[in-house]
């Protein structure tokens, strides 16, 4: 015991001696950030596609405009609340949410729209590629009943299983199953993680799986899921949630910013407003983050270096 204490003292002395040659804190201070951009709060929703948006915008804002970007990992609903408290300034990928737009933009007037991101969101029912290859007609919803037995699991009570996702996503699936007279039961997987794991397992072990999913999603880079064609979407066919019998509408994903931020005159607001790219762009960055395990900053830098002209249009430089 005594010995150990002395050992401790010795170590401390050794450390002290070793330390005297070290580099001092603050000797290589990074160039002062600043100009007129200031700080803004960016919410980061829990999917990798969003993270790609966030990575690129904050990389450009920090590097080219000298802003300080504070990223906050929040669920969508919580992020909307942030507009009214000042905790959130920017949302870079909003999926619809007409009710929240009404509350925070129209009624409370704490947020404003900042245009499309250029990315198209698709929601629907998907099967793993091996199934599409083996049962080519499965992609038509009319044949789903024929294959219902394939999708039976311990959870689906004798019917086929339709696996749903994260509780954050609005779905019409229960109504769809009912209104299209499908012999299926909606089973809640409860999280995106569970959905992806289920698809990964289904493709690898050739297990049948029918599940709610969406694009853009980094997972498409790993497994190219195949979409089932539900009755085509027509404007207004989903007006009554109980009577829905058509596919999900395509989403034009857009950006929302806080009123305060929009009025601040910050150059970062113009950047956010001008930010626009494509599904392919987003997937490329998402893949670097999710599959190649790069940090968001590294991924953004790599993409920006290859797409400087796009970035220049966002910055208003030509």
């Amino acid at each position, binding site marked *: 015991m005594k010995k150990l204490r002395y050992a401790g003292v010795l170590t401390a002395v050794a450390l002290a001696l070793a330390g005297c040659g070290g580099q001092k804190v603050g000797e290589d201070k990074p160039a002062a950030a600043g100009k007129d951009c200031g700080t803004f709060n960016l919410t980061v929703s*829990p999917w990798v596609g969003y993270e790609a948006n966030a990575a690129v915008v904050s990389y450009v804002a920090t590097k080219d405009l000298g802003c300080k970007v504070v990223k906050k990992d929040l669920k969508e609903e919580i992020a909307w609340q942030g507009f009214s408290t000042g905790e959130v300034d920017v949302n870079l990928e909003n999926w619809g949410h007409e009710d929240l737009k009404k509350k925070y933009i129209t009624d409370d007037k704490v947020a404003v729209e900042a245009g499309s991101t250029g990315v198209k969101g698709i929601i629907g029912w998907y099967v793993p590629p091996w199934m599409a290859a083996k049962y080519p007609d499965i992609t038509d919803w009319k044949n789903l009943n024929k294959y219902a037995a394939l999708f039976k699991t311990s959870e689906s009570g004798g019917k086929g299983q339709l696996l749903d996702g994260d509780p954050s996503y609005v779905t019409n699936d229960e109504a769809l199953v009912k209104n299209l007279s499908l012999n299926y039961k909606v089973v809640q997987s*409860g999280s995106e993680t*569970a959905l992806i794991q289920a698809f990964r397992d289904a493709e690898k072990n050739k297990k049948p799986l029918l599940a709610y999913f969406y694009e853009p999603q980094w997972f498409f880079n790993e497994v190219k899921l195949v979409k089932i064609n539900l009755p085509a979407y027509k404007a207004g066919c989903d007006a009554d949630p109980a009577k829905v019998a058509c596919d999900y509408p395509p989403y034009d994903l857009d950006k929302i910013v806080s009123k305060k931020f929009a009025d601040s005159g910050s150059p970062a607001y113009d950047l956010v407003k001008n930010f626009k790219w494509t599904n392919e762009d987003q997937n490329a960055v998402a893949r670097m983050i999710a599959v190649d395990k790069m940090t968001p900053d590294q991924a953004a830098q790599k993409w920006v270096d290859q797409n400087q002209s796009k970035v220049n249009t966002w910055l208003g430089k030509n």
Partner: protein
Amino acid sequence: MASITGSVEIEVRRPRRSVVVGVLLVAWVALYFVLRGIDTLVLGGQETTALHRWLTEHRDDVGQGNVFFDAIRIAVDHFVVLLQDLISQPSFDRPVPAIGWLGVIAISAYCAWAFGNWKVAVLTAAGLGFVGLQGLWQESMDTLSLTIAAVLLSLLVAIPLGIWAGLSDRAFKVATLVLDLMQTLPTFVYLAPLTLFFAIGPAAATIATLIYAAPPAVRLTAHAIRSVPPESVEAARSLGSTRGQTLTKVLLPMSRSTVVVGINQTIMAALSMVTVAALIDAPGLGQTVLKALQTLDVGVAFNAGLAIVVIAIVLDRVTTAAGDRPWRTANRRRRLLLAAGAVAVLVAVWFSRTYVWAAEFPSTVNVGSRIAVIASDVTDWVQNVFGGFTYGVRDAVTNGLLNPLEGLLTGSPWWLVTVVVVALAFVLGGWRGAVPAAVCLGLLVATGVWQDSMVTLASTLLATVVVVAVGLALGVWAGRNRRVDTWIRPVLDAGQTMPPFVYLVPFLALFGTSRFTAIAAAVVFAVPVTTKIVADGIRAVPVATVEAANSVGSSSWQVISKVQLPVARRAITLAVNQGLIYVLSMVVVGGLVGAGALGYDVAAGFAQSELYGKGLAAGLAIVLLGVMLDRITQAAARRTENFTTRGDKR
């Protein structure tokens, strides 16, 4: 030997009760086949009741913009940020925190030594060093800042409340009831509403953690004050102490070690909550875990989870050592050493403020990525080897046990279930069991999520049975064998503190998305605490009693079944009870891996504004299930105990 007579007594009585129970169950099944499908109170996933909509509409009635809440939020935020500035975030116009890693380790180890002993000081230094080597220094310090803030604030609230409950019988009764509710209410339920009061960010996260972590400190402080020998208090009063003097000079010092146990549990609870609070932007390791889950990166999630486990073990051992420290104050030699140590700490802090190598944890050796790779490989291997087999187990259990049970509960009319459960509660626990059961079931109907509650109840019952079986087996084993105990404890600690999110992915791979997966996760989470309580109970059986049993030639099995288990009955009741609460607290996490029902409702209420009211109702339903099961088991245990006491007196 008296206790043996007692257990014989129960055995004589048991058949009669079990016959009644059996008859009830058979009648239920028979009626189920007749009445199946009537009045089952089904409510679809996106459907809501009037109550739910009312709750949703009134969610904004209190909260934001309120000066009072704003003041609290700002104060708490500043406190957390101050701690972060000190140890984790670049601050005070410097590119590094005020105190670098060397300083933090030195201060922590010094405190561990001063309050505990030199062994835990070494453990502290090693633990924090390991976390740094994992490449998670800053995240760990963020988690630590938040934990410290939440624990300090918890104690600020909890200890006075605990003292009050310790001194006043009425306060004690109210406190026990409220604390039971607080501990069963799923954290998800108040996570979202809290953001209404305190916005998102560190303040809301700290306050959520506070709510979750304060109960054990209140409970144990009250318990400690109540168990101070009355003679010491009388002695103080007989010498003319005022109430204040009695409190500060007698009650508080004498309850110190039990209060420290309370602080220990508060710290453990806070650590587990800080990870969940990542959902409302709490900084730290929780973020790393959640991020990793998005890309199903088990390795990275495990690495961060491991850091949490290491921090938990360090804090646990240090506080335990502090609690065990004898009354004796420092002798001269120790005081000299402490002073010398303080100087060394100051030197270390100065280094950590001056030199880069002592301020930023060196990233040259990164154990973390290696751990992540190993964890992923192990998971893959397990998945490949056991994959098919585990699906078989799942299907067998689901079809053989879970589905029939769930069918019975969800398929019977609600009034039939109510009548049967209340009757069972009466047979097992008398009025003390039946009345709460009736009230809870009535309220469950009112919540509008009856059917989801029955689904959750079925899974909960099954999970609890497994937890108790495994916990008893492991607990008896560890309780009878010191070596097994020392070997098994760290594993149990890890099971208890590893954030459940970490093992969700492997479990999903092994069992798919299903109720069984949720049950498995709940079992992993609840078995450690059950095992620990059983082991402690078995060990507390007086040696003389066991020797007496051995001296009449009992076999090991007879000693266990006729002496150790009956004598440790109180501990086992507690173990069952805690196992149940732990299983229930995992219901929401279960909802994330396919359990659906109440867990999913709560998670959906957190995520979708139009389902807020339903989520709240589902959260209440979980509490109601908890209260109901708790009361029935307690009442049943009390009954058995009464029989035994009667036997004893004869």
